[in-house]
């Protein structure tokens, strides 16, 4: 069993409640931080921990915090990104639903470090029921003096509220999220200025993912150096992996970074192997945006070394033969899966979710969906594969926010590694029914 930080107490009955959470050491970091630590010291510990943003980008959290502008007399905000909309990702929902206080504890401690009087959880609208769970937890925390004025008798006062979105993947992008929080369409802003300088209502703002903030209590309690010892290399700590697709045990797993991908897929502790004893065909390791890899490249790098669950190992080989850890949305596909049809579901997703602000993304995602649709329906034209390649290249890097890249990469990687399958669809439409994916539903 690997080290557990976030899910250590997940199976304790009643852990959702404040009392049980505190009986298991909960909120100790608030006590320690507010009473014995200076805000800058906490920021230093987070820097030392090597903690990286768990939403997908993997940017060092301590560095992000140290960028926060601190002009006199201006409010600062901490906004927790609980928009979790990257296909294949459901870890934050699990964490917030099962153990909501770990997020609140992290928010109070982090807000103290950042000097934020108010913080907010922006949660995707579809998770409305989770917002109820969070609100109940917030109410408990107020009643216990862990929120509100003079927390635990100190000079630090803090308020937390939950803001519910309304269905838009783009609001996971931090500036779109801030626009949405201000009651507008989720159109990403041009950067700079970065939110650390001009974020919510033009005030300095830190936006962090749920899992990132939930990791802060451990760092405050045990020190950044201790956290940095967990994991491997620059991939410090643990990571929540959302495992789904053709595996025996879909679910959320906390892994110590550095375990092998093979172990993660096949061991009983994690995914438990491929469903129905079938063979592994491909994996999307970090949410729909990251490149898909065929079995041989996800299990071993091009150099033949075992691929590890870490930022560095998953990206070994660049986009030619590697991928990314991303959000940890780990989707597994067995040998019967049509890569082309699967890609079509991604292309449809990105077209649906493009905010429409930048023409390469707005138009390009639509073209890619349309072309893939005709291919999967047996009407693909000669040259369509090259056309798709050409479109994705022209989207990548040419948009305000990373949604364009996110839409391009799955297309590029599917063609790079499975080009023959596209040609098979185009040249032999009569064989498409053989690819048709039929999952036997247990009735």
């Amino acid at each position, binding site marked *: 069993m690997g080290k557990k930080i976030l899910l250590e107490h997940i199976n304790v009955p009643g852990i959702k409640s404040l009392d049980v959470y505190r009986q298991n050491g909960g909120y100790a970091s608030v006590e320690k931080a507010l009473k014995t630590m200076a805000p800058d010291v906490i920021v230093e510990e987070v820097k030392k921990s090597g903690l990286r943003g768990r939403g997908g980008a993997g940017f060092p959290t301590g560095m992000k915090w140290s960028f926060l502008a601190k002009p006199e007399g201006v*409010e600062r905000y901490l906004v927790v990104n609980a928009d*979790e*909309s*990257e*296909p*294949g*990702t*459901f870890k*934050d*929902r*699990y964490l917030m*639903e099962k153990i909501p206080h770990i997020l609140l504890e992290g928010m109070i401690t982090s807000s103290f470090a950042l000097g934020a009087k108010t913080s907010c959880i922006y949660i*995707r*609208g*579809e*998770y*409305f*029921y989770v917002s*109820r769970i969070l609100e109940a937890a917030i109410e408990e925390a107020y009643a216990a003096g862990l929120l509100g004025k003079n927390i635990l008798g100190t000079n630090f006062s803090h308020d937390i509220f939950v*803001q*519910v*979105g*309304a*269905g*838009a*993947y783009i609001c996971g992008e931090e500036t779109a999220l801030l626009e*949405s929080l*201000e*009651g*507008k*369409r*989720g159109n990403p802003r041009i950067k700079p200025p970065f939110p650390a300088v001009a974020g919510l*209502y033009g005030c300095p703002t830190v936006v962090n993912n749920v899992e990132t903030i939930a990791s802060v209590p451990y760092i405050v309690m045990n020190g950044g150096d201790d956290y940095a010892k967990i994991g491997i290399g620059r991939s410090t700590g643990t990571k929540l992996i*959302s*495992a*789904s*697709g*053709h595996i025996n045990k*879909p*679910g959320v797993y906390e892994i110590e970074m550095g375990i092998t991908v093979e172990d993660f897929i096949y061991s009983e502790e994690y995914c438990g192997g491929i469903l129905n004893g079938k063979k592994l065909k491909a994996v999307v390791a970090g949410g*729909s945006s990251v490149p898909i890899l065929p079995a041989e490249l996800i299990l071993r790098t091009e150099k033949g070394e075992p691929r590890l669950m870490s930022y560095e190992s998953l990206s070994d080989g660049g986009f030619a033969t590697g991928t990314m850890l991303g959000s940890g*949305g780990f*989707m597994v*596909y067995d040998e019967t*899966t049509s890569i082309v*049809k*699967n890609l079509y*579901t*991604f292309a*449809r*997703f990105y077209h*649906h*979710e493009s*905010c429409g602000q930048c023409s390469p993304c707005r138009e390009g995602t639509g073209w890619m969906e349309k072309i893939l649709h005709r291919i999967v329906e047996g009407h693909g034209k000669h040259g369509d594969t090259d056309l798709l390649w050409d479109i994705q290249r022209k989207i990548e890097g040419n948009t305000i926010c990373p949604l364009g890249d996110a839409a391009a990469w799955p297309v590029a990687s599917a063609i790079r590694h499975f080009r023959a399958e596209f040609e098979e669809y185009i040249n032999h439409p009569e064989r498409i029914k053989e690819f048709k*994916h*039929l*999952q036997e*539903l*247990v*009735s």
Partner: protein
Amino acid sequence: MSKEIKFNEETIALVNKIIKRYPEGKQKSALLPVLHIAQAEFDGWLSPETMEYVASLLRIKPVEVFEVASFYSMYNLKPVGKCILEVCRTSSCWSRGSEDIIKHLEKKLGIKVGETSKDGMFTIKSVECLGSCGGAPMLQCGASFHENLTLDKLDNIVENYRVEGKRKSYTDQDFKNTL
């Protein structure tokens, strides 16, 4: 649709409580939450009258409400059934059989995706990833997530909603989830 577009006192108090979260003059931040409430109260969709009412409550222009309401997928700009069966169709749900779920629903209810049953009870909607990939295939109805669907389970879910006969909203306090 003869109902007057106006919140009762309790709801007005809730709206005011939401507005208080934000700094003075930033009441527009309440737009998304208030639209959710309005949709739940006024027959599950946002009519032009409803949007104008919300604009007046938040002291913003109606067009500011419309541009937001038309951007986010959870707001309905047309009348819908009491229960919207929102079936996820993205990768993991697709790979675990969401197409079969949709086909079964279409056959069972005699309507296509995007349509509402004649009795006004059900609308079928296909939606993008709902963050429930570990419970694929899944559907959402109101605040509830129904995961690890089989055709049998699906029949039961639909029958239960039919018997209950109530409108389901995201804002419902009661919810089921199978996580």
